[in-house]
């Protein structure tokens, strides 16, 4: 493959606003070291990969937001649990707990 051709791909990647330097470095390295002859399939691969990366950006942002929402929910649940404990402590200040729902068998 000609150097000029590779340069087209590399310039294109450099111009894209991709926030994944690791994957970008993989693909640029791959382009620089490619010495095959199947130019058409190579071009398809590069464009397919770049399109995938491009789509990944939006999905990644949404996933991050979803994780953050889960975290907020977890924090809220923890506060509710603390509130339950506080209620139990307030109503049963004795050293042992107030109730037991153990399904034990007694002699």
């Amino acid at each position: 493959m000609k150097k000029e051709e590779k340069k087209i791909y590399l310039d294109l990647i450099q111009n894209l606003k991709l926030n994944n330097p690791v994957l970008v470095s993989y693909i640029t390295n791959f382009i620089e070291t490619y010495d095959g002859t199947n130019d058409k399939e190579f071009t398809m691969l590069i464009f397919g990969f770049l399109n995938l990366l491009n789509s990944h950006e939006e999905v990644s942002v949404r996933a991050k937001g979803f994780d953050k929402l889960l975290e907020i929910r977890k924090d809220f649940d923890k506060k509710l649990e603390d509130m339950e404990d506080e209620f139990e402590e307030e109503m049963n200040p004795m050293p042992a707990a107030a109730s037991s729902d153990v399904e034990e068998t007694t002699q």
Partner: protein
Amino acid sequence: MTNTAELPSRDELVEKVGPPLHQEISRTYQVSKNEGEAFKTGAEMLKAVLQERGSDGKLYDQKQFTKLHEGNFQRGIDILQPETDSSGRYPPQMFYIPVYKRGFLGRKEETDEAMVGIKLNNDVNNPDKNTVLMYQVKHKNGVISANSAKKFLVSTEDAVTKGMQEGKGRGKWFRGELTVEQYNNKYAKKDSKYWASERRIRKLEIDPVEEAGRREEVLKRLEGYYVEQLAEYDKKTAAEIKKSAAEAEQAKLTGIENQRKLIVGLTDLLKTGVIQRVAAERMIKELGLEGVVDVDKLIAQAETQAQSQDGAVKVEIDTRRDELEAENKELKSKLQKEITEGRKREQDLERQHKEQQENYEKQAKEWQDQLQKTQDLMKAIESRLAEQEKRAKEREAEIAKAMKDKDEELAAQKGAAIKFATLALDLKNQLNELEKKSAQNGGVGGNVNPPEGKVIEGQFRDITEATPVEVPPPLSQLA
């Protein structure tokens, strides 16, 4: 009729079909006719396990039972890692959790009860199917027996671990925590005057209406807290959704922009002939821009760019040439300016050098004059010092001479004194001789005693016995 002798033993069954599954054990427990029967089954299982492990029921023996307490509840029974025996099976593992009570001033003390757990290890890879038998037992100095079991429960490793970590509901039982009722009935009444007093106060002084009021008060307070937390949760969630939406929108816009750039790249590839129409169509399809981007237009655009490229290159060369000429002119002008400035700087430097040289010469002359003056002064000082030295030597000679004269004078005086003393001694001796002779002559005509002979004798004695004259040392020595 079944011959019991032909029935396989428990060990043989285990060997043949493996340990009983949790489902089987649980099912047996659930279909027991009544609680008493279920409990009996549980006690028998405890007995069987103790026998199989060769345990004598010593809770405090770490080789038999692992102690779990508040400090390691978070790890739960995970700390009991299953180990294979010589036959490759996973034998049951036993642990216990002390049951605590509050002693005087709320101090924590172990009671004579404990929660004993037996992890059967019938499915070590699936904690939710690994059976754990839990017993509440009574012990005496840490020793239990199968008959000491009070309560019994069939559970799983998963459930027990979760119960220990959470400590709620059934978990309290797994953690060995007593209910208020259990505590009051077993310990508060007889073991702790403090808590007995508390209990009495609670029983006698708090009426149900007041208790209900307190409950309402607590609930109201917690409700306020809940509303606050809920509002905060809503606020945080809304903010995060807004933020995520904005970021996603931005990412979407970036994605669209990137797709445009990919199309530009595609055009470049078409233009340079790297790809053909079919490949371009496939790529547009891959990019999801089918119907949005027209391949024909793209090819036409690429061809237009390629055709206009020659003309563009010519224009570019002309432009570049003009730019180079302008740069050249500017460089020449700059160079001329620098040469002029360089000459001027050179003249300035020469003038400065000359002035500096003059200054150096003037300074050197001043230093020479100063040196001459200093040398003259030194000569004068040397001359004066020589004269002073000469005078000092003369004075020294005079003093030495005077000292010598004085020494001689003193020596003469000393010699005279010695001579005089010698003469006095001789005279005394002579007089003594004369007295002796006069005495021998018997006084005939020999009244030679002088009338004031004593006086004379006394005078001689005074002279001979006088303190010798101290002769001062010569002046030369004093000097």
